[in-house]
């Protein structure tokens, strides 16, 4: 049995009648990079906030490196680092001043804190910017400053909530590599995102959240395997009209549940319940409607397709996003 850094037990959060997180049970091993994937409003940030002791669960609890988030909140806070949209540094202070304040609050002796600040500054190439106000930094540098702040006290668990949003691709890749190295050093990382590509590349395991529920947990390959019951066809067919597309959807509905139909001229992508007839059906319908087909391929489902299939299809996601928007 692995040693868990995070273990939740029926963790639930209600906001009035709205259930943001519903009966979450998950264990994250020490040193694991665990991705929490889901659309906006799925309950990822609420989960992170409960685990960070920012909000109180309605029911259930969780242990962070053995400390209970309800009973031992102060100890939990010593063990965690948080980078989240709602948790910021003081814009009117320099990076160094912000870090020194946190050093005091985490009771790190001054010489040790200074050494750690220098180490982080070097690690993130911050030396020249140390005396710049956080408010004057670009969003990428500001995010790096927040990561420095989260790492200052050598936390055992690091929460990175939508950490790459607003970062340029190069910085995002750099951050992903850095996070992997942290995990190799034994830090447990929770990486929440709604970008499908990210966790597939870096996470050891991924939990898919939808409508407050943890729909599935597994490695990226396991998740894709779970949805091997999905058939995906990619067709190169230029100039497809809306009428042709609608006719195709209607015809596909006759052979099983359609998860996903996406057309960006000239590429058409269709995923549905596993069927040997998908390529044939798509091709015949397109020909029937007078469409030109340049190429047709079947392919393995990606994590995005796995996610869509696991959450009940695009229409279900659209319905959820609409209701989540109304709640917000």
């Amino acid at each position, binding site marked *: 049995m692995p040693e868990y850094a995070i273990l939740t037990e029926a963790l639930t959060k209600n906001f009035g009648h709205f259930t943001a997180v519903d009966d979450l049970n998950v264990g994250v091993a020490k040193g694991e990079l665990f991705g929490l994937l889901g659309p906006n409003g799925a309950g990822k940030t609420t989960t992170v906030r409960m685990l960070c002791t*920012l909000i109180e669960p309605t029911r259930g609890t969780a242990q962070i490196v053995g400390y209970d988030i309800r009973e031992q909140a102060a100890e939990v*806070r*010593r063990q965690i680092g948080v980078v989240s*949209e709602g*948790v*910021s*540094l003081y*814009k009117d*202070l320099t990076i160094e001043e912000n870090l020194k304040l946190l050093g*005091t609050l985490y009771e790190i002796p001054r010489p040790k804190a200074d050494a750690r600040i220098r180490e982080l500054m070097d690690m993130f190439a911050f030396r020249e910017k140390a005396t710049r106000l956080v408010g004057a930094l670009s969003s990428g540098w500001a995010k790096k400053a927040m990561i420095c702040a989260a790492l200052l006290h050598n936390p055992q668990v690091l929460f990175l909530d939508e950490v790459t949003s607003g970062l340029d691709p190069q910085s995002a890749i750099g951050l992903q590599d850095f996070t992997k190295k942290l995990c190799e050093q034994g830090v447990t990382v929770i990486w929440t995102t709604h970008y499908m590509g990210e966790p597939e590349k870096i996470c050891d395991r991924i939990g898919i959240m939808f409508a407050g529920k943890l729909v599935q947990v597994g490695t990226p390959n396991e998740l894709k395997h779970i949805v091997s019951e999905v058939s995906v066809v990619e067709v190169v067919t230029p100039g497809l009209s809306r009428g042709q597309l609608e006719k195709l959807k209607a015809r596909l509905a006759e052979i099983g549940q359609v998860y996903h139909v996406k057309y960006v001229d000239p590429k058409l992508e269709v995923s549905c319940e596993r069927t040997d007839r998908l390529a044939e059906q798509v091709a015949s319908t397109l020909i029937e409607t007078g469409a030109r087909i340049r190429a047709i391929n079947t392919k393995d489902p990606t994590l995005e397709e796995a996610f869509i299939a696991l959450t009940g299809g695009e229409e279900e996601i659209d319905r959820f996003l609409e209701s989540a928007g109304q709640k917000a």
Partner: protein
Amino acid sequence: MSIAGFLNDSIAVAGNEFRVFRRNRSAVLISLVVLPLFFTASLGAGRGGAGYTYSPTANIPIAWVDNDNSLASFRLWQSLATSPDFHNLIQGYTEKGALAQLGTKRIYAVIVVPKGFENDLENGNQARLILYTDDSEPGLSDQVQSTLTTYTQNFDVNVQVQPYLTQLQRQTIAGVAIVKKGAIFAGFNLGLTTVLAIVQIFAVFYEIAGGISREREEGTYARLLVSPISTGSIMLGKTLFDIILSVIRTFTILGISVYAYRARPNTDILTLLMLSLIIALVTMGIGFVVGALKMGQRAIVIIEFFMILFLFAFSGEFIDSNLLVGVSQTISYLLPFTYAFDALKRTILLGRPVFSLTFDLEYMIGSIVLTYAMAFVLLHFSRERLIA
């Protein structure tokens, strides 16, 4: 957490508040310069500007109609005209002519000495003066009457001021006792009681409630919440920071009041500082409570303006609490600032030792304890409200 750790965290928070504060030039300017200067200067100017004594009746034109033409009436005119309270007594009007000018803003009151004034005095009877006032000026008739009463009583016990209701003065003033109001307090002393409290309340409320609201909106309060710092340390740190600002503000107000407006408080500087800080602490407690209620900065500004209006109505500074009736009086008695204004008046104006004001002090300190306890519970147990 140890006490040393608790204090260390509080000092770190206070130091942090200062660093953020000094980088925000407009906050420094508003909190330490504009507010104390603006309030003190505008109230000082409104109360007649610089000068050792202030009398609301000194410079207003008042007609003097002497129908007795006696030595006694001359002496009374002389004593009034040479006093600091009646610089603008105009002679030469007939009674009819003077009354015709009332309500035109050329003359605000008419003092008539009726025939037989001297005879009455000599015969040991009660002499009478007739006073007509322009009631379109709120409070003016009361001021003239009370000041005139003081002089006529000093002049001779047998002279009585008898206010007459004119056609301009429909409402009755009978039964409203306004004795020795305004004229007996030197210079800016009364103004000092107002400005000291109002500036502290105005500035401190925004610094605490607005500060928490800003931190919540910017996400820096959440940063504190995910660190091991306790709610008590955050509150103490912010309190320490604001106490220092309040001390600076108190000295600024006292400096302007004493040197520019010649206020002569009948108490020592430590008493003034202590009362000023008690008022600041009461306001901080209220600020923490409001700050914990998840309000935006705009809402805090609106609440602040309402709070100031509320103070004007119910604090007893502008309308005596005893003159209020029903719910208004109950509100006034419940409001801690009523006791703050009372303590300031009793010390600054009357020179009472601060520790003799037991009930005022007890009520204010009780309010500090209550509001801080409420704020602690709200900040500690509803952390969700403090996240953006």
